[in-house]
Every structure is written in structure tokens, then in C-alpha cells.
């Protein structure tokens, strides 16, 4: 870099009274005006406002400034703003340095003299660094116009449809034989009581028919390499042992299967039975059968009677026991993760007797029981009789430190109200009691629905159930009515537990695959809890639905649309700038130990053979996030971080001490 004369402009912001009331801004302005390389220092009420930015641009043009220091709020707030400002005036965007005199000074101090003193030091430090700042180049990479969506619940379905409608190719990967996820298992949905299947099937069919969507069901993503715009993805397709093109979905194979009615149906959460050759539910998409290799006699024992009954029965000749698993390779631009949730396992709360008593059901089991497509065609019978007393227990496995889930599952208050309503519709004489801790009816139409349910005569009792025990054929539910401060016992023929939403059991596997993280509650972590709710820390990877945290269908759909929109924005830009603040390795100092490779969470450094037998680390610019972990790990100081070089940092430290 040719050496030019450094001319720094310093701009100290009042931030209204946020900074101005604790820091003597004028004094700061004056104390730094004589520092080396500073050619002008000013203060202004709001630097981030249009006139504030115009001030900087004007000085750059008129005074030939080539470095800028803004003393204001956190760089996380407005560094991008000021980078743009100076870029508009023809400077390299990396020639601005922010001194944070708000979060790190005015907001945390009370004494004005001390705060001013500290602000001066922070600005001096920023000026010192600004003198050493170097222009950086922002590289661009192309983005493949193809999206991968992982998980085909309502979140994945909605995201796929939106992206496909915008004209991009979508690969939708679902590990089950059918798309649909949990929503397909629900009966009616709160608060409007639309039938879940009725509102979902059209979307499922649309996915299947969409020319831009390739559906990969019964499949798993097993490898993800590369970076935004250029992900190399491998998908493993499990053999269905049924030819998808030939299968007409007639179901003759399932009828004939020797294991008919002997295998527990996952879709009916253990309440119904199926054959080894099966379709999970009548309106499954694709509407094709699958032979379950875990149970099928022919596939497990090599023999099924004289010859496999399904094969004999199929008139379309679709049964193919010779099928092998397939690996599909895809080049992908962006990824949407929509892997949903698992249901809390209520056996972790032994006091409720789930798993011990047949008439204690989980929320999802109840959905299947009450559904007309369920194992009893929607008839709610316990031991052949209509239940007279039904008790619901809320917050099972949620808001509960004893099982490690501190969060609220957000749907169970409402689904309990809904389920009580559904019983009331079918069995108007049944006495219904709901035990709750708090009622969270926060969504549109929720409070109204909750009121309606109470008006129907459903009894709400505030208090967590302490114990459920047997009393003859019935159950005795014991609790304290905490509003009255008195113990209460309720007898019941059926107890429904409002089991909560928990992260997928295999969430870690997914995190490792995609290099994304989880929040303390175990769900996938968004890049910012408020402002970047669908982004992840990995560029080009977005999250939607219950994989990010518990939510109902309206919120899931909204988030799916958000994630789709983020993915589409990137793909329609066609190119993306990659981080300019990245690590660079000095190949002459590097001794190839590989600690940087271990330290990097994003897989950016890789050891290359520079000469035979000589390994040198090289950082992939597109993967590097500039976190600096490798630079710290490197025992030889071979790695420096652009924009945070040692000499830049040391100059800052010297300026403050």
C-alpha cells in the first residue's frame, strides 16, 4: 500500500441525552482534536441521522479525510451504517472505526467527569487504530438458484412452496415416508377448529405437483460441505422396496401382508396397528406404499411364507426387494431447516402414571384418538365405555426445571382447551376438568376461544397435579387448588397430559452437519432473537418452525415464509459478498501443526501440502467468519486477522494506558 497522509475525522455523538447526559461531549471533541493525524473533530446530536451522515460525507469531500472515527453507540448497531456513509463518499468502507461510548460508557457510568475521561480514552484508542486501518476488499461468490429444505412438516412445506413459486428449484428432504409432520396427526386446530387435514392436504398435494419441487421422502441429509451459494449436499434415500412409478397406492400389498395389524403405527403414536407394507395415513404424500425393513419378514428373516405375500398381491408388480439405498448429490445455494420437534416423554414425570395406566394419554395420542382418521374413527371410548370424567393436566414437561425444560411450550394451553371442546362436542355429558398453572392465551382469537370453552362448562382449576393414582377402575387425580389453598381430588376415567414440545432427539447430529448452534433450551439458535429470527450464524442457512422453538401453526407458517423470503433474497441477488474481515496465514511462519483447523468452528482453515512433506494452513475466504479463534490457537502467531491485526490492537491498548 502506498503511504498516503492519514487524515482522520472524529465525530462524537450525543445520542440525544443517551450519551450527552453522562459524557461531556464537547470536552471529548476538544480533547481529541490535537491527536496525531486528526484533521477535524466535531460533535452532533444524532450522528446516525441523515444530517449526521451528510456531515461526514461533506468533510470527506471537502477536507480530503481518508479515515473516520465515530464515537457513538455499539458497532453492532451502526457500524454498517457508517461503512455505507463513507463508501458513498468514495472511501473504502473499512476505513471507519467506531468508539462505543454509549453501551460501554454513558449507560454504565454515573459520574460525569469519570465517564467523560473514559470516553476520551476510548476515542483516543479508536483514533490510534484508525491511523493503522487498511482498506479491505469484499469478495463476491455466486449463489446457485437452488434451495434445500430439510423436514417437510407444515414449516418445510410452506417454505418450499414459497421458494418454488418464486421460480427457484427446491429439494425437499423428509425422513418419513410421507410429508406432513405433526400437523398431519392433529384433528382440529385451535382457535378456529379447522380440520387439520382439510387445510393441510391441498398444500401437500401442491408440493407433490409443483414443477420446481423435487420431493425426497424417506431420505436423510448425510453430508453438507461448502458455503452459502455453493453447498455440496449428499442425501441418502432409503429403499422403499416399492417402485414409486409403478405403485398405484391401491393397498393390496398391505391387505395381504402377513404382519397385517401386528406393527404399531408411528403415525397413530402407538394407538393403531399397521402392516409391514404401509402408507402412514390415508392422505399421505406421496401416496405410495413403503415396506418397513425393520419388521418385514422377508427383509429381516429372508423368508415370508413360501413367497412374500405383498409381492404376490401387487397387480402393478411394484414390489422390489432388490432395491438398494441411493445417494443423491446436490449443489445448493441456500438451506432452510424445518425439522420440527419431538413430544415430551411423559414417563419422565412418573407421578402422572403415563405408561403405567392405559387411560393416561399424551396430548398427541389424544389427537389421534379424537381424529376421525384415527384408530377408533374418532370415538372416545375407555374400556368400551364413554368416559364420564376427563381430566387434563397442563404444562407436562414444560416450565419444569425438574426435567430441565424451563420454557413454555406455547401450544398446550390452547390445544388443551381445544381438546376439551372436542370432547364436549362428542360427549356433552362428560365432566371436564383442566388443571393449569397459568393460562397463556396470547394469540389472535385465543382468549376468546378460552372463554368459549369455559362457558361450555369446562372447569379450570389452578394448581399443578401432584399425583395420579389408581382407584378401582378409575384414576384419582390429586392436586391443590392454589386459588383456594385447598387440596382437591378428582376422579377420572381418562386423563390427558398436555405434553410439551421438546427439541428433536437428534438435533446435535443436525447441528454438526450444518455447523449451526442451539440455544440453552436446546432448540436451534437464531442469529438474533429479535432482528434476525430466521437466520443462523452460518450464512445461507435459515430456520423455520418448531426446530427453532415451540410455536403454533400460524407462527410456524409465518416463520417459514420469513425463512423462504431470506433464502430467496440471497438467491435472487445471485451473488453474495463474503466477510472481508477474515484470517490470513503467513505461509512462511506456519509450521503446519493444524491447531487452527481444530479451533475453527466453520471448517475454514485446511492444511495443504505446499511442498512435498511441508504442510501449510490455508484459510478458505468464503468459509471464514473472522471470529479469530484460529489466530488465538496458533502457537506461532502465523495467523493474523484482517482489521484486527496485532499492531492495530496494540496501538489501541497503548492509547488507553
Amino acid at each position, binding site marked *: 500500500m502506498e503511504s498516503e497522509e492519514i487524515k482522520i475525522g472524529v465525530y462524537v455523538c450525543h445520542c440525544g441525552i443517551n450519551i450527552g447526559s453522562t459524557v461531556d461531549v464537547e470536552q471529548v471533541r476538544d480533547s481529541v482534536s490535537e491527536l496525531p493525524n486528526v484533521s477535524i473533530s466535531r460533535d452532533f446530536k444524532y450522528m446516525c441521522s441523515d444530517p449526521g451522515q451528510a456531515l461526514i460525507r461533506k468533510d470527506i469531500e471537502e477536507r480530503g479525510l481518508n479515515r473516520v472515527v465515530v464515537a457513538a453507540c455499539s458497532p453492532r448497531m451502526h457500524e454498517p451504517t457508517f461503512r455505507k456513509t463513507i463508501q458513498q463518499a468514495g472511501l473504502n468502507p473499512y476505513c471507519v472505526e467506531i468508539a462505543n461510548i454509549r453501551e460501554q460508557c454513558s449507560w454504565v457510568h454515573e459520574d460525569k467527569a469519570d465517564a467523560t475521561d473514559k470516553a476520551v480514552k476510548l476515542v483516543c484508542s479508536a483514533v490510534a487504530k484508525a491511523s493503522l486501518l487498511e482498506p479491505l476488499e469484499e469478495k463476491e461468490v455466486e449463489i446457485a438458484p437452488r434451495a434445500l429444505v430439510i423436514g417437510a412438516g407444515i414449516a418445510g412445506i410452506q417454505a418450499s412452496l414459497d421458494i418454488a413459486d418464486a421460480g427457484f428449484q427446491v429439494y425437499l428432504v423428509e425422513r418419513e415416508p410421507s410429508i406432513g409432520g405433526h400437523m398431519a396427526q392433529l384433528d382440529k386446530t385451535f382457535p378456529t377448529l379447522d380440520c387439520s387435514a382439510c387445510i393441510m392436504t391441498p398444500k401437500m398435494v401442491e408440493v407433490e405437483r409443483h414443477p420446481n419441487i423435487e420431493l425426497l421422502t424417506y431420505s436423510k441429509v448425510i453430508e453438507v460441505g461448502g458455503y452459502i451459494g455453493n453447498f455440496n449436499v449428499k442425501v441418502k434415500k432409503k429403499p422403499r422396496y416399492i417402485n414409486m412409478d409403478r405403485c398405484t397406492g391401491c393397498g393390496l400389498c398391505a391387505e395381504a401382508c402377513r404382519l397385517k395389524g401386528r406393527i404399531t403405527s408411528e403415525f397413530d403414536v402407538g394407538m393403531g396397528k399397521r402392516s409391514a407394507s404401509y402408507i402412514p395415513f390415508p392422505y399421505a404424500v406421496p401416496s405410495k406404499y413403503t415396506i418397513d425393513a425393520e419388521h418385514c419378514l422377508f427383509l429381516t428373516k429372508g423368508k415370508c411364507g413360501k413367497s412374500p405375500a405383498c409381492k404376490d398381491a401387487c397387480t402393478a408388480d411394484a414390489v422390489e426387494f432388490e432395491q438398494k439405498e441411493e445417494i443423491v448429490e446436490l449443489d445448493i445455494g441456500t438451506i432452510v431447516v424445518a425439522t420440527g420437534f419431538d413430544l415430551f416423554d411423559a414417563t419422565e414425570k412418573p*407421578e402422572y402414571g403415563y405408561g403405567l395406566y392405559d387411560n393416561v394419554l399424551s396430548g398427541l395420542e389424544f389427537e389421534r384418538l379424537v381424529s376421525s382418521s384415527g384408530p377408533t374413527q374418532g370415538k372416545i371410548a375407555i374400556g368400551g365405555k364413554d368416559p364420564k370424567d376427563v381430566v387434563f393436566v397442563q404444562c407436562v414437561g414444560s416450565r419444569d426445571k*425438574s426435567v430441565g425444560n424451563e420454557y413454555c411450550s406455547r401450544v398446550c394451553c390452547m390445544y388443551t382447551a381445544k381438546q376439551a371442546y372436542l370432547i364436549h362436542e362428542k360427549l356433552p355429558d362428560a365432566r371436564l376438568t383442566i388443571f393449569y398453572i397459568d393460562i397463556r392465551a396470547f394469540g389472535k382469537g385465543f382468549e376468546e376461544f378460552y372463554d368459549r370453552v369455559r362457558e361450555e362448562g369446562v372447569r379450570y382449576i389452578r394448581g*399443578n397435579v*401432584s399425583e395420579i*393414582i389408581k382407584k378401582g377402575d378409575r384414576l384419582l387425580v*390429586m392436586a391443590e387448588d392454589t386459588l383456594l*389453598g385447598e*387440596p382437591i*381430588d378428582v376422579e377420572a376415567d381418562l386423563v390427558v397430559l398436555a405434553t410439551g414440545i421438546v427439541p428433536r432427539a437428534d438435533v446435535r447430529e443436525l447441528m454438526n452437519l450444518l455447523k449451526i448452534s442451539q440455544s440453552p433450551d436446546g432448540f436451534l439458535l437464531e442469529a438474533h432473537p429479535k432482528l434476525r429470527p430466521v437466520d443462523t450464524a452460518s450464512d445461507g442457512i435459515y430456520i423455520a418452525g418448531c426446530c427453532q422453538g415451540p410455536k403454533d401453526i400460524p407462527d410456524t407458517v409465518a416463520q417459514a415464509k420469513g425463512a423462504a423470503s431470506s433464502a430467496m433474497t440471497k438467491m435472487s441477488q445471485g451473488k453474495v459478498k463474503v466477510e472481508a474481515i477474515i484470517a490470513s496465514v503467513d505461509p512462511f511462519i506456519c509450521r503446519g501443526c493444524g491447531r487452527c483447523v481444530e479451533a475453527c468452528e466453520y471448517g475454514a482453515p485446511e492444511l495443504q501440502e505446499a511442498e512435498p512433506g511441508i504442510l501449510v494452513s490455508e484459510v478458505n475466504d468464503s468459509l471464514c467468519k473472522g471470529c479469530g479463534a484460529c489466530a488465538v490457537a496458533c502457537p506461532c502467531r502465523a495467523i493474523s486477522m484482517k482489521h484486527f491485526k496485532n499492531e492495530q490492537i496494540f496501538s489501541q491498548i497503548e492509547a488507553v494506558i
Partner: protein
Amino acid sequence: MFRKSHFNIRKFIYDAFDKDMAKVVFEKVGIWDCTTCSACLNKCPKGVDTVGFVTGLRQLMVEDGRIPPPIRDALKSVSIHKNPWKIGAEERSKWAEGLEIKNISEGADILYFVGCTPAYDARLQKVARAIVGIMNKAGVDFGILGNEEGCCGSEIRRMGDPWTFEYLAKENIETFKKYNIRKVVTTSPHCFNTFKNEYEGADFEVQHYTELIAGLIEEGRLAFSREINKTVTYHDPCFLGKQNKIFDPPRKILASIPGVKLVEMDRARERSLCCEGGGGRMWIESEDSEDRLAKIRVGEAMCVQAQILATACPFCLLTLEDVVKTEELEESIEVLDIAELVIKAL
């Protein structure tokens, strides 16, 4: 109704918010009802230390000298005799007379920590003898402290006297150090629990005797020669089950005894019902007039047609057996310690 006490922990906690803590206790009844079983503690979704709160309030009462006489006497007895049963320390090892037991000073792999109740109570002495008999049969190298053994302090702490507890803990740890004791086996789940979870600075291994025996059976070191053709159910002591998650070893022992038909009560394992013997309740009766939990529990055992109600805790044994006697149920059901069943079948 399957409920007994009207003691409401939440009311105490709410009141303590803005009143002088001690007053809350003195004005209210019920604070001595809590057995510190931890059923509520285990299930509290917000992690409130309910039992700590109860013992804390009792501590205020002890500090203030306003203790119910039976509790006062038990605490006093511990200070004088190193046991809460008001019997002299020199009589502690009387139960072992005529038995072949090493004193730990001669050196042994295991210290058998007998505990106050098995050492002094005639009914529980049978259990201690049974445990000794079993260990001898299996060739376990063990010794006892004899009259040097002192109260573990578990109940003392729960009666609101943490000072004496600390003193006892320190003394016991020193005694164990003196004899270089690496492993302690206890009769009582209460001693076991306090050694394991409450003795600060303890560096010895602790086992409940049911763990030891289950291990001996598994290793083939105990061979049964007699059948017990009875239906047996097992009552989980709170301090062994709920509080330390030891559910399987006692059941494994029972299942391995020839002839035993093991049946479970509705409330088993984590769901077990407290017998009301813990937390100092061996020394003080509830202020409530409802049925004792032990009575409900014996009823539950009879519901599953058990002929023997087995347990593995001195307090459970006493409270349950007391019900069988007062209700005159001896014809239908017998309360026995697991060790007694094992020795019968050996």
C-alpha cells in the same frame, strides 16, 4: 380421601415473604408434619427448596427454644448419649453380644454402620443381626465401631439442629479417618443419605446394605437354600428411592429369593408413598387427626394381596409394623426387612 396433613408449604412460604419468619412458624400449626420425604421437592417445577425451607423454619424454632418436648428430648439425648433414643452410649453394641463381629480397630474392608435405631430398638436389632449373618455367610470382611459409633445426625438436622449435625458429622469423619475406613455400609437409608450427600469433606464410599447384598447375589457369593412361598411387595423408603434413586437392588434381592412372588403396589419407585417416619417424625406425632400414611400404605399392600410387606429402612419398618399391630392385621400381612427375608432363605 388419600390425603393426610393440612400442612401447606406454600402458605408458609407466602407468609414468610413479609412477616417476621419466626412468627410465621409459631402462629401456625403443621410445621412438624413434614417428613422431609422430598416428594414435593422432586416435582417442584421451579426448583424451590421446600425441604430446606421447612428445616430452616424448624431451625428458627429451635434457636428460639420453642420446641415441642419430644423433639427437645431427642435432641438432648443425642448431645448426651450420641443417639436420640435416650439410652446410654455404653449400651450401643449390646445387640451384637454373642455374634462373631470384628471391631473395626482390627482392620476390615468395610465398616458396617449400624445406626441408632437398629442398635437400640429391639425390633430393629433383629435386622442388624440379619445383616451381620448375611455378610458372614458371604465372607465379607467387615467390622463395626461398637460403642464408639455415634448418631449420623440426619434426623437431628431435619429437626432443625444443624449445629449438632455439624458436630456429629465432624466427629464421625474423624473416627472413620482414625480407622482408615474406605467403605461404609449402612442399615438405614437415612444414614446412607446423609453420609453420601451431606457430609462435607467425606472421602469414603457409602453403600446401603441392599446394594451390597444385591452385589453379593450377583457375584454368586450367596446361595439360597430355602424357599419363601409368599407374595411379597416392596415399599420404597423415601431416602433410598425418591432421594437417591435406588430402586432396583432391593427388588433384585427379593426376586432372587426362591419362592417369592414379587408384586408391585400402584405407588412404587418414584411414586412411592412416604411412611411418615422421616424428618424427625419418629419422635413427634402429626397435629392432624386423619389416618396415618403408614395405614394407607399397609392398605395398599393388602390391595395387591401381599402377604409380606418388605422394606429396607428402620423407620419404615417401625411405622408400618405399628399399623399392622394396632389394626390387628397380623393374620393377613407381615412387615419384614429385606435382610430378614434373605437370612430366612439362606
